[in-house]
């Protein structure tokens, strides 16, 4: 296990390093670093001084090392627009994005698992066919457009839910959360559902496929032969076994959900990291862009690592594969 863990950690570190190089090249080689790092209002003397101070007269590989060193110390530059450290700016907005992503994941499981289970147990019923057709729709629907239509129907025409923003927040552990107030929760319903549409479809399909496969297994036949009740077979023998792949995929998708919240946040003006990055791209606030990208990369690699480790704990074969 230790060897496995160590190997995965080294792999993860290598990927972070590779991505940091890519980001570095993306920002420093494609764009003009002087323009990116020094405010446009600076005069010539200030520019020269800043170029020296920032080490931009050094060769590229040395600059990369400096960038890496600063990044390791948590310094990813200052935002031009907010004049705050970019990292801090993003971390401030992270709770909003996280709670939206968690809300979407929970919604996907609550809605997707029962529907998928039903569709798997009764694959030929009309309702199951409806569920499956719905899941195709869930894959096909352009998320941002569904978001707009949700606002159109529930906010503009029916007036049931607020259209944009985060609503009231409560401060817990130094971070502001919406899901703890009724008003905040009302603001969260539409964005969370919107963000989870794709995941609901995914969970339905995975669960259905898993159920259909598991139902043919010998141990299910044996459980039936033993005379166990269908409920027990479904819940214990089938459901538990399909949870592993579903949880893995949903876990892996969590990073994707955070990334995709860029779209949902823009539609619902949800003040999270996603909206920040879009705003930053539009005004070319590059330090924020770089910081966001590095944070997302780290986040992804951590999520992948956690899923891998959890998976190897749940299924020892994964670990053994590496040794062979």
């Amino acid at each position, binding site marked *: 296990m230790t060897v496995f863990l160590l190997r995965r950690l080294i792999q993860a570190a290598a990927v972070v390093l590779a991505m940091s190089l890519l980001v570095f090249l*993306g920002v420093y080689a494609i*764009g003009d670093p002087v323009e990116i790092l020094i405010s446009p209002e600076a005069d010539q003397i200030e520019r020269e001084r800043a170029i020296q101070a920032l080490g931009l007269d050094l060769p590229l590989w040395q600059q990369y090392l400096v960038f890496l060193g600063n990044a390791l110390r948590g310094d990813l530059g200052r935002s031009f627009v907010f004049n705050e450290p970019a990292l801090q700016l993003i971390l401030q907005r992270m709770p909003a994005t996280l709670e939206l992503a968690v809300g979407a994941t929970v919604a996907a499981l609550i809605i997707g698992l029962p529907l998928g289970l039903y569709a798997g147990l009764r694959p030929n019923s009309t309702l199951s066919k409806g569920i499956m057709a719905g899941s195709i729709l869930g894959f096909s629907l*352009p998320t*941002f*457009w569904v978001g707009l239509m949700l606002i159109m129907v529930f906010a503009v025409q029916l007036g049931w839910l607020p259209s944009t923003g985060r609503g009231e927040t409560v401060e817990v552990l130094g971070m502001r959360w919406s899901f703890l107030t009724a008003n905040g929760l009302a603001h969260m319903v539409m964005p969370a559902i919107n963000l989870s549409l794709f995941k609901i479809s995914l969970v339905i399909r995975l669960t259905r496929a898993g159920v259909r496969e598991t139902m043919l297994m010998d141990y299910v036949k044996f459980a039936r032969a033993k005379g166990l009740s269908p409920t027990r077979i479904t819940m214990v023998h089938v459901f538990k076994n399909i949870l592993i792949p579903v949880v893995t995929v949903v876990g892996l998708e969590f990073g994707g959900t955070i990334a995709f919240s860029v779209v949902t946040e823009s539609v619902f003006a949800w003040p999270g990291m996603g909206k920040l990055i879009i705003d930053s791209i539009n005004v070319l606030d590059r330090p924020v862009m770089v910081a966001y990208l590095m944070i997302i990369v780290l986040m992804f690699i951590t999520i992948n690592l956690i899923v891998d480790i959890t998976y190897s704990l749940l299924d020892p074969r994964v670990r053994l594969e590496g040794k062979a």
Partner: protein
Amino acid sequence: MSSTTAGAPPAAAAARVETPFRRFVSEFAESRLALLGLVVFAIIALVAILAPWIAPQNPYDLAQLDIMDGRLEPGSVGGSGITHWLGTDDQGRDMLSGIIYGLRISLTVGAGSAILACLVGASLGMLAAYAGGRTDSLIMRLVDLQLSFPAILAALMILAFLGKGILNVVIALVVVEWAYYARTVRGTALVERRREYIEAAQCLALPTHRIIFRHLLPNCLPPLIVVGTMQIARAIALEATLSFLGLGVPITEPSLGLLIANGYEYMLSGKYWISFYPGIALLVTIVSINLVGDQLRDVLNPRLKK
């Protein structure tokens, strides 16, 4: 595995015998839904190609636009005497014409990027499978890295660095999609290259490029076609999303996503049609492609053969 369109000998098609291609067609037609998808997509593609001849108005020709016709409701008649069946946008542009021209851009970007990504991805996947060893692990590492990173984010960053523009969108889409093709082709090619016919070709001392292009590639096509179909739909959706976020196509060449974005600010005042109808067009396009792709997967997957 080899029962595909690519393997169909043309000589057999003349007689009423069951050729692989015929079997493929009849199996595909078993699903009414997929057939419907194909017909709908064909109509959409035709409309997009014939846009200049069937659109009531040229949405790029500023001379034809009248700002006084701005934000007309669906079905109203504008100052120029045209009935705007789907209303007009804030510039007085006929929405129906805008959608027809927008489809053109969306389909071009979607199909163009899918084909390019297929070329890049399939070549690299084939190289990985055939060369093996270091080359293989290097390419597959890249694929893993690419796939572990969400498409929307990678595309976003590429466009942030490159700027707006149709070509840049295509580049971004190719970069985020090649990995799917590479993985698919490598997986299939690894299985296929161990088959006897490849061994036979190698024994005949055929040149490597001939083995790859004439023997290996045709037999890797079925999964590639399935992935390709799905990826066209994905590319169209992604392009629309990027354009909606203001990072995709420029304003001078509005795709469906940009049309939807234009209507965003008017929606809160109840003018739904500017965003609604382009979205419907987008949805119908994507669903029709996905329906076709779904059925193709079932028909071309040897594991599901009865």
